[in-house]
């Protein structure tokens, strides 16, 4: 996987093998190395490895942290309950529905704006600054502003009605099918700037010789985009896809801010993490919430591994 190649590509190490350093000096340096790395090691054991083990352990119990004495062993009960829970499946469906739209829009717009700014001869810096601004807003601010702009009496819907696109106010938060696409649109506004910046940096790193050679061969705009730009941006697009899926499937604040703990009367905006939060802090089912977290993490892990497999198979 990628992390292995990063380690392997390290330039040959010459710092440790100098003849001028005695054994004592080397040991002294190693000592400092361990001291510098120690904070991370200690913190990762306490707040990384220990919680991982605890998480797995908790899945076998009916456990509430407000009444720890009533803890009961339930075996694989939580796992079975999670796999058979229709609300968990509904939350998974909702988040996939949301992310399928979001990831395409966010990276599509990021790519389009990156190509446009790359082609612009002046003013590129101004547009670069503007397009990055939404990334700075917090999710809470985003949901207040976006929720208001899209509200039935808000400015966007007034414009849509005036333009004759909709007949009247749409109460989209109560609709079964509208919340997820609209949240995807709002999130696209906030996040496309990340794709834009990463892809723009990628465009600048493509050698101009490739385009020159293509135009000598008579390739048009579309052909050079399709056969040079897109393949050359593959590492960036792959990175964005992997990170988007890991982060996107864990969406929480957006739905928490606009809906109740179960994502509305129809669970139309219930996401897996919102459901997990409701189980943990509304129902006090820590063991079950832990199981849901592990199930989601396993799903994300499988998708991530498949992506790496797919890409390494494609590049051979």
């Amino acid at each position, binding site marked *: 996987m990628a*992390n292995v190649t990063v380690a392997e590509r390290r330039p040959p190490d010459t710092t440790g093998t100098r003849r001028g350093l005695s054994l004592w000096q080397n040991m002294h340096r190693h000592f400092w190395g361990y001291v510098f790395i120690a904070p991370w090691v200690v913190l990762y054991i306490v707040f990384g490895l220990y919680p991982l083990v605890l998480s797995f352990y908790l899945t076998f119990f009916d456990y509430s942290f407000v009444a720890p004495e009533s803890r009961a062993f339930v075996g694989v009960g939580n796992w079975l309950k999670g796999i058979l829970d229709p609300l968990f499946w509904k939350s998974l469906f909702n988040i996939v529905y949301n992310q399928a739209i979001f990831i395409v829009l966010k990276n599509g717009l990021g790519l389009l704006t990156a190509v446009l700014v790359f082609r612009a001869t002046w003013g590129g810096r101004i547009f670069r600054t503007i397009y990055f601004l939404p990334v700075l807003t917090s999710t809470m601010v985003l949901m207040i502003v976006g929720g208001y702009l899209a509200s039935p009496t808000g400015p966007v819907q007034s414009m849509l009605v005036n333009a004759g696109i909709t007949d009247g106010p749409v109460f989209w938060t109560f609709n079964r099918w509208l919340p997820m696409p609209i949240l995807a649109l709002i999130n696209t506004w906030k996040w496309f700037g990340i794709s834009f910046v990463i892809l723009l940096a990628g465009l600048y790193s493509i050698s101009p010789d490739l385009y020159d050679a293509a135009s000598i061969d008579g390739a048009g705009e579309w052909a050079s985009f399709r056969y040079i730009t897109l393949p050359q941006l593959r590492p960036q697009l792959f990175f964005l896809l992997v990170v988007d899926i890991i982060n996107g499937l864990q969406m929480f604040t957006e739905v928490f801010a606009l809906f109740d703990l179960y994502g509305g009367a129809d669970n139309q905006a219930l996401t897996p993490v919102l459901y997990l939060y409701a189980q943990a802090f509304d129902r006090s089912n820590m063991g079950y919430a832990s199981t849901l977290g592990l199930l989601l993490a396993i799903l994300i892990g499988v998708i991530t591994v498949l992506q790496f497999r797919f890409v390494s198979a494609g590049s051979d």
Partner: protein
Amino acid sequence: MSEISAKPVLTQPRRRIPWSTIIIYALLLIGAIVVLYPFIYMLMNSVKPGREILHQPTSLPSEITFSGYTGVFERLNMGLLFRNSLILAISITVLNTLLSSLAAYAIAKIPFPGRNFIFSFMLATMMIPGILFLIPTYVLMFNLGWVGQYHALIVPAAVTVFNIFLLRQFMVTIPNEVVEAGRLDGANELTIFLRIIMPLARPALATVAILNFMASWNDFFGPLLYLNTPDKWTVQLGLLQFQSSVPGENAQQIWAATTLVTLPLVLIFFLLQDQFMKAFANVTFK
């Protein structure tokens, strides 16, 4: 590019702007308007009388009022929320930037036994989704008695793999001779780190500091879980409370609040935007 080179040079006394350029700038402009509209709307509503916000959502304000800004300080104790958010953001930024750069220096420049293993292990942990830690960490914090206290958020964020990785990638490019020269002068590793590495790594340090500050300032989930008393609330939690409690007549207050919460990051961004861009450029798995 190809169109220009294909045109005969002499037949054109005045250069016409090619269609492709017009299309590019038209699209860029539309994009800029869509991106800026919510910001402009936010600013405009923060000085618009509350009644007009409700009844004429698309119109310009008939008068400019700053009652939103004064109201938000009375109603929401904005001073306290800003203070709490700053305590958290500054503590995490200082601690994390220092500890992450120490670890990055060790991995980049000190060849201690086990170094490669630790670095590979770190990179592998970046792939683990954060959701896995949520419940068990909460149980751990609850048992430690840390729920309701700032250090429940500060300590786990004191050093993070992504920042170590970012700093290490930069420090590797510092020539070994620079470090060796310091060692031959008899300086110990801590002195070399503080006197030689820190000044040379300034762009990477600035980048990591900004990322830390942004993540902490905008964090909602962490404070929601751990800061359960109003005297410890951050600006983001204040906004949540506000969103559900503000009466319609004072709608301008919520817009003043969102403007104030967004402002610090926008200011930092304008001051340091080139560093900021570097944080996101060149990140791939390559």
